[in-house]
C-alpha cells in the first residue's frame, strides 16, 4: 500500500477528511521549507502539497505567482525541491508528499531521472497541472515503476466521458478543481460542489480532494463534509507575503491557519455536527 493510500485508509477509519496544505517550495527562501513542512504536519496536515516554482505559472493566481517569483530569486529548481523532500523524510516517514507544478521542469530533468530521484527522495505523488492524461502515457509508466502516484485534476467543465478517462489514469486521489479559474479565486459554491462530488463517486473509488477557492476554516469545514480531502493553497501562501521574507514567522502563521482549519474540519465531521452544507 502506498503512503497516500495508507493515509486515506486511516482517515476513513477515523471519519476524518484529509487536510492538505500547499506551499511553494523555496518561499520565502530555500531554508524555510523543510521546517515549514514539519510545522504544518504538527498543526494537523495529513498530506503536503509542495509547489515546484515555475517561471510561467499559468494556472495560478497572483498569490502563488508571487510565491514562485520569491522562490525563483534563489533559483530553487526541481532538484532542490526533491532534496527538500529527502530532508523532510529523514524525520517524517509517514506523511505523504505530493509535488504540484508544471510539466517543463520535469521534462527538462528527464522523466526517468525524475522518477528515480523522486523515489529515492521519498516522494509520493506528482501533479502537473498542464499535463492531461492524454499526454501522460510516458511519464505515468515511469512514475508507476517508481511507486509515485500520478494525480490528475477534474474540473467543473470535465465531461462525463473525460471523467472516466481521467479516473482510469489517476492514482492516489483525484483532485477536483472546485471552480473555473486560477488558484486563489473566491467563488466556491459548496452545494454545487456536493452534487458534483456525488456524481464523481459513480466514476471512481479513489478519494476525492477539493482545491481552489478554500480560503478559511469555515469553507474548509463545509468542504470537509462532502469531500475526502481539502487542499488549501493561496490562503496559506498569502501569509508568506504578509510576513515579508521571515520564514519562521510565516511557518507560525501557516501552522495557526492549519490548526484552525483542522479543528473546524474535524468538528464538521463529528457525529453531532449539522449535516447541512
Amino acid at each position, binding site marked *: 500500500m502506498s503512503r497516500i493510500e495508507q493515509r486515506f485508509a486511516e482517515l476513513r477509519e477515523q471519519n476524518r477528511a484529509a487536510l492538505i496544505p500547499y506551499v511553494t517550495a523555496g518561499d520565502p527562501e530555500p531554508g524555510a521549507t523543510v521546517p515549514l513542512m514539519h510545522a504544518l504536519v504538527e498543526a494537523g496536515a495529513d498530506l503536503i502539497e509542495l509547489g515546484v*516554482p515555475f517561471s510561467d505559472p499559468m494556472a495560478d493566481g497572483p498569490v502563488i505567482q508571487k510565491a514562485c517569483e520569491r522562490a525563483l530569486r534563489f533559483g530553487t*529548481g526541481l532538484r532542490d525541491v526533491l532534496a527538500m523532500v529527502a530532508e523532510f523524510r529523514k524525520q517524517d516517514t509517514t506523511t505523504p508528499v505530493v509535488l504540484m507544478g508544471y510539466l517543463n*521542469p520535469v521534462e527538462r530533468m528527464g522523466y526517468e531521472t525524475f522518477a528515480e530521484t523522486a523515489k529515492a527522495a521519498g516522494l509520493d505523488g506528482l501533479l502537473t*497541472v498542464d499535463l*492531461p492524461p*492524454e499526454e501522460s502515457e510516458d511519464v505515468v509508466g515511469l512514475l508507476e515503476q517508481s511507486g509515485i502516484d500520478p494525480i490528475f485534476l477534474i474540473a467543473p*467543465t470535465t465531461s462525463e466521458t473525460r471523467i472516466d478517462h481521467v479516473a482510469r489514469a489517476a492514482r492516489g486521489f483525484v483532485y477536483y478543481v472546485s471552480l473555473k479559474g486560477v488558484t486563489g*479565486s473566491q467563488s466556491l459554491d459548496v452545494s454545487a460542489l456536493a452534487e458534483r462530488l456525488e456524481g464523481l463517486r459513480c466514476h471512481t473509488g479513489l478519494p476525492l480532494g477539493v482545491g481552489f477557492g478554500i480560503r478559511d476554516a469555515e469553507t474548509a469545514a463545509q468542504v470537509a463534509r462532502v469531500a475526502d480531502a481539502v487542499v488549501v493553497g493561496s490562503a496559506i501562501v498569502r501569509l508568506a507575503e504578509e510576513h515579508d521574507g521571515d520564514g519562521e514567522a510565516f511557518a507560525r502563521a501557516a501552522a495557526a491557519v492549519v490548526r484552525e482549519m483542522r479543528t473546524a474540519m474535524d468538528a464538521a465531521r463529528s457525529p453531532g455536527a449539522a449535516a447541512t452544507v
Partner: protein
Amino acid sequence: MNKIDWAAFPDARGHFGPYGGRFVSETLMGALDELQQVYEQYIGDPDFLAELDHDLKQFVGRPNPLYHAERLSQELGGAQIYLKREDLNHTGAHKVNNTIGQALLAKKLGKTRIIAETGAGQHGVATATVAARLGLECVIYMGEEDTRRQSQNVYRMRLLGAEVVGVKSGTRTLKDALNEAMRDWVTNVDDTFYIIGTVAGPHPYPAMVRDFQSVIGREAREQHLAMTGKLPDTLVACVGGGSNAIGLFHPFLGDESVEMIGVEAGGDGVETGRHSAPLCAGQPGVLHGNRTYLMEDENGQIIGTHSVSAGLDYPGVGPEHAWLKDIGRVNYVSVTDDQALAGFHRMTRTEGIIPALETSHAIAHVLDLAPQMRPDQSIIINLSGRGDKDLNTVAEREGITL
C-alpha cells in the same frame, strides 16, 4: 527526403512528430474539444469559406500584391526579390487574416467576449478591429514593457473599444501576456473566445492559425507562377511564434524545389544569450499548451528573451516549426537587432516601403542571401507588416526624440 503527406499533420491530437499536443489544465480541455470540433466542421464548409473569402476581400483588402522589388534586386545583384505585401492589409500586418477567421468561429460558437494576447500590438489591433466590427466585448493582454514600446498600438486598441490590460508579472512581455490571457480564459471559459495570435498554444490553435494564414502562401504561389511562369527558389519569413512564416511556407511544402528559411530574432547575438531564437539556440520543452523548442535554463525555467522587435520577443515557437526544423524541411537562422535595423533602412530607402521591425529580420537575411544567388532565381520575402508602429523605437535607438 521521403514523400511526406503534409496534409496529415498534425495528427488527430495535434502532434507534429514529437511536438505540439495539448498541455493545458483540465478546465480548458472541454473548450478546446469544442473549438476543435467547430474548426474541423467549418474549415471544410463551403458557406463558411465563402464568408471568410468575402471578409478577406472586402474588409482586409485581399489579395494583396506580390511586388517585384526591382531596385533592391538590382542593387544586390543576385536573385530577384519579391515582396508579399501583408503590410497592405487592413490594420497593417498579416495578423488580421487569422483574427477574421477566428472571430467567425467565435460567432458560430455564440461567444460574446473576445480575449487576446499581443506583443507588438499588431495582433491586439487586429483582434480589437474584428471585435469592434462584430460588436463583441474585447480584452487585450499586453506585457507592460510592450505597452511602453508600442504605445501607439495601445491607443489604437483603445480607440477600437478594447480594454488593454498591462501585464506586470514575469518579464512583462509577450509570454506573460499569454499566461494572463490563459488565466482569463480558464476563469471565463463559458462566454469567452480566446483568439491566439500565432501558431502556438494547445491544439487546435497551431493548425487552425496556420490554416487561416495559409492564404498568404496560396496567393503568393499563384502570383509568382503567373508573373514568372515558375515557382520561387526561396521563401524567407521572420519567425516569432511563426504564423506569417507558416502562412507563406505551408502551401509550398510539397514543392520540393522550393527552399524555405525562417529568420529568428538574434537580439544582441545568439552567442550573448540575449536573443529570442529558440529554434537556433533552444531545446524542446513544454510551454503554453504545446511541446516545442524553448529558451529555458537548466531547471526548465523559461528565460527572459530580448529583441528590438516586440513581436519576436517570445521564448517559444509554433510546434510545426520545431518539427520542420528537425526533419530538415525548413532552415532556421537568426539575425541581430543591428542587422534588422540595417534591413529596415535599406528597404525603406530603396523601395519606399517602411517595414515592421519583425519583418526587417527577414529582409536583413535576404541582404546576405540574394547576392549569393543568380539573377534568374527568385526569393519571396513575406513582408509581414508595416513599420509605422516602430518609428518611436527606431528613432530612440538613433538618439532622436519624436
